């Protein structure tokens, strides 16, 4: 059955199920007795298994099947949920996600068996209640097992050992000091489970002797990548006959050819350059099977897979849209057609001359429709940030265990919607901020107790909409930022001199944290502290047209506030004029517009400022900034647009105000986009191009 057409659905639904599993397993850990949660988990695992099976992803199916078994036992109250089980389950989820990634890249599940995990699951079941320690111990040994299958997905530990010896295989043959026997085993052509038969043969042989060489490699034999025969070399002191008998006793083995061999025979072939596939496995007889390197072909196949990963992306960027949103869109498009027809009939009117009143009405109607249409299209592009933040509770749980700090993540406003492009890119910065809170923010439990706080640290993530912005706050109730330490570090790094540092405000000091390579971590952990952190967070967020700020109280915690624009494509802007050029300033960043007499300009540190409603606001002369032609005569009054970037204000001096307008942001093109004060252009009604000022950069 060709199932490729279902691949997209499979990927989509699988990620859904993985997410639901992850959520529910988290819930289960808190409330292990909740039957509803267990049932929900069971259903999700079952659907996963079913889908994997339908798509022919056997390994994935195998893993989910064993997970389902565990849930079955949990549901039947035969097994108690404990954190060791939860750990294993999360590892399984990671593995399934791994499969999904491979499927996304190659439409294939890959060769990762995850045998280690499956064993863990089965051990847990076998251990049941009476061996609670076993799973814990198993969980500890897990990290060692996990990376191993990456390089050679070997499932049998005995074979695995042999693989490791492979590099010095000829030496080993020599060093064996025992008679060597070469064997070629022929399997019945009707045999369905060749790999299983081969495995049984190895088992049988291993009772009598040590297998030194496999041809084809043990990996390929396991994957059934061989015809109907394969060869091995064994070293044994024992009598050959009983061993051969037991090999023959394995069902569906047609015949066994064997003979004595010596290491010298292989040394010659080994010396010859690249003798690899020369030995035909079909060369029946006692023929000397070559010591073909088992690891090399395995490495090759994995290499090929990596290449395939790059070459075969199978998924496109898609978005799920609520059907109601699409219906609204459809309605508005029909209205647009009606409006167009009305306009056409007005212009084709019998009178020959345009009726001003009628035309005006129609244009107003058209305007209303386009505004609605724009809103609807924007809504279609909006997705809740849920998709990104959902993985965070799990992450904090893992960190909590890893760092041995009890902590809890509280999230709110997951349904806050943002433009798809923003949501796609906000994940990493948020993740970094959370890790930062977990690693640096929250203190060790002892310190917390000493400070009179509850042992459990709290991290929160709050998202909400504020005007045309979405605010995401990431905070903790940890130690807060020690500005003295930051200051000392800044002086040590030579960023400021000791004298300068004395005059810095709290905020300026905290801003040092956003400078490249300024890590406060006393020791580098793999969670954070490599000094490539907050500056990357800041630049990522700024690239999305947002900004990030920190508030921190020593001993009480810190809060990072990320401000993001709702959408990237269309904004409300104030159009201003400087000489004969037009510029757009995003309305969202404008506070007020003031008419100020030139005489009221004051100077602070030789910089122009104005004093406005108890605020000292620096003046930004747009014409100077933009290298415009100098003005001939100075007016008595100037128009100042007061803009705001976080807590910082600036007064932008312009020549004229034109008015408010909805503008479509266009990129300046690759060769001009490194501009610091202009972050795009827009095309005005008359076809003229106007630049959009980057308020964040100029204030």
């Amino acid at each position: 059955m060709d199932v490729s057409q279902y691949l997209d659905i499979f990927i989509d639904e699988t990620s859904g199920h993985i997410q639901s599993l992850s959520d529910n397993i988290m819930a289960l850990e808190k409330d292990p007795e909740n039957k509803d949660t267990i049932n929900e988990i069971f259903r999700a695992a079952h659907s996963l298994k079913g889908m994997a099976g339908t798509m022919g992803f056997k390994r994935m199916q195998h893993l989910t099947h064993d997970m389902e078994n565990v849930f079955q036992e949990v549901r039947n109250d035969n097994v108690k949920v404990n954190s060791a089980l939860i750990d294993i389950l999360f590892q399984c989820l990671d593995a399934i996600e791994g499969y999904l990634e491979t499927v996304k890249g190659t439409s294939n599940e890959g060769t990762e068996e995850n045998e280690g995990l499956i064993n863990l699951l089965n051990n847990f079941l076998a251990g049941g209640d009476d061996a609670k320690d076993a799973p814990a111990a198993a969980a500890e040994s897990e990290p060692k097992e996990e990376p191993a299958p990456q390089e050679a997905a070997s499932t049998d530990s005995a074979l695995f050992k042999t693989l490791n010896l492979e590099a010095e295989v000829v030496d080993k043959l020599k060093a064996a000091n025992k008679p060597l026997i070469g064997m070629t085993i022929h399997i019945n052509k009707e045999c369905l489970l060749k790999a299983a038969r081969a495995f049984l043969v190895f088992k049988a042989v291993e009772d009598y002797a040590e297998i030194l060489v496999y041809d084809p490699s043990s990996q390929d034999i396991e994957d059934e990548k061989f015809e109907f025969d394969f060869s091995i070399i064994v070293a044994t002191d024992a009598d050959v006959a009983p061993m051969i008998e037991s090999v023959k006793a394995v069902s569906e083995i047609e015949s066994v050819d064997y003979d004595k061999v010596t290491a010298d025979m292989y040394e010659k072939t080994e010396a010859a350059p690249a003798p690899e596939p020369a030995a035909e496995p079909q060369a029946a007889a006692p023929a000397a099977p070559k010591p073909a390197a088992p690891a090399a072909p395995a490495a090759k196949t994995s290499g090929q897979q990596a290449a395939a990963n790059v070459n075969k992306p199978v998924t496109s960027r898609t978005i799920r849209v609520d059907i109601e949103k699409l219906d609204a869109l459809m309605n508005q498009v029909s209205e647009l057609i009606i409006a167009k027809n009305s306009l056409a009939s007005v212009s084709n009117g019998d009178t020959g001359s345009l009726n001003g009143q009628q035309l005006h009405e129609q244009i107003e109607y058209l305007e209303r429709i386009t505004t609605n249409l724009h809103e609807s299209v924007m809504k279609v592009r909006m997705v809740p940030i849920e998709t990104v933040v959902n993985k965070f509770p799990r992450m904090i749980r893992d960190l909590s265990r890893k760092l041995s700090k009890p902590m809890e993540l509280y999230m709110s406003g997951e349904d806050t919607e943002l433009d798809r492009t923003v949501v796609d890119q906000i994940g990493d910065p948020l993740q970094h901020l959370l890790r930062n809170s977990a690693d640096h923010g929250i203190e060790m439990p002892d310190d917390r107790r000493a400070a009179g706080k509850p042992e459990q640290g709290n991290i929160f993530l709050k998202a909400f909409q504020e005007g045309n912005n979405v605010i995401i706050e990431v905070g903790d109730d940890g130690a807060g930022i020690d500005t003295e330490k930051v200051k000392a570090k800044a002086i040590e790094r030579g960023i400021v001199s000791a004298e300068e540092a004395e005059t810095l405000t709290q905020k300026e000091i905290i801003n040092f944290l956003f400078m490249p390579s300024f890590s406060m971590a006393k020791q580098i952990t793999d969670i954070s502290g490599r000094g490539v952190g907050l500056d990357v967070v800041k630049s990522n967020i700024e690239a999305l047209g947002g900004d990030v700020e920190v508030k921190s109280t020593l001993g009480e915690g810190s809060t990072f506030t990320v401000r993001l624009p709702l959408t990237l494509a269309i904004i409300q802007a104030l159009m201003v004029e400087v000489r004969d050029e037009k510029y757009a300033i995003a309305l969202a960043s404008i506070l007020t517009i003031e008419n100020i007499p030139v005489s009221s300009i004051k100077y602070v540190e030789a910089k122009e400022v104005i004093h406005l409603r108890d605020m000292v606001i620096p003046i930004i002369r747009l014409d100077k900034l933009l290298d415009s032609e100098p003005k001939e005569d100075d007016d008595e009054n100037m128009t100042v647009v007061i803009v705001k970037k976080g807590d910082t204000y600036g007064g932008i001096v312009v020549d004229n105000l034109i008015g408010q307008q909805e503008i479509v942001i266009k990129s300046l093109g690759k060769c001009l986009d490194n501009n610091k004060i202009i972050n795009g252009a827009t095309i005005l009604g008359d076809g003229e191009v106007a630049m959009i000022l980057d308020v964040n950069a100029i204030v």
Partner: protein
Amino acid sequence: MSDIAMLDVAEKEKVQYIVVKIGGEQYGIGISNIDNIVRMCPIARVAKAPFHYRGVINLRGEVVPVMSLRRRMGLEDDVFTDASRIIILKLESIGLIGVIVDEVKEVLSLSDDDIEPPTQANKGKTSFINGVGTNGDELISIFEISSIIGDVDA
């Protein structure tokens, strides 16, 4: 000259060039890179952009950066006339970009053996041409688009 002789055998295919005038000289731009040729239109200045970028234009609803080839090559600044044109190049690396020329003369087919490698006379200076073609008595310098576009800071 041996490699040219080889090319002669290898391919006789002719490539079409748009011949343009900048200052007193004629230049050829390979037609495969050209999206479009438009008349001069208002160019919006982009503050703080590199000097040789005159700004951007509105090309049927798209914002397209425009470069002055005269400024790029260090010649006298452009004087726009009725003959001035903006040649819109379409490049895989950066998308659309316009270059201003004094005049568009003709389309010319040249085979590789009509084009000689550029003289090494002005070594050290960045060269914007990768060959000199002949058309009767006239010499036509063939632009190397990538070196015009590349190294914005140069």
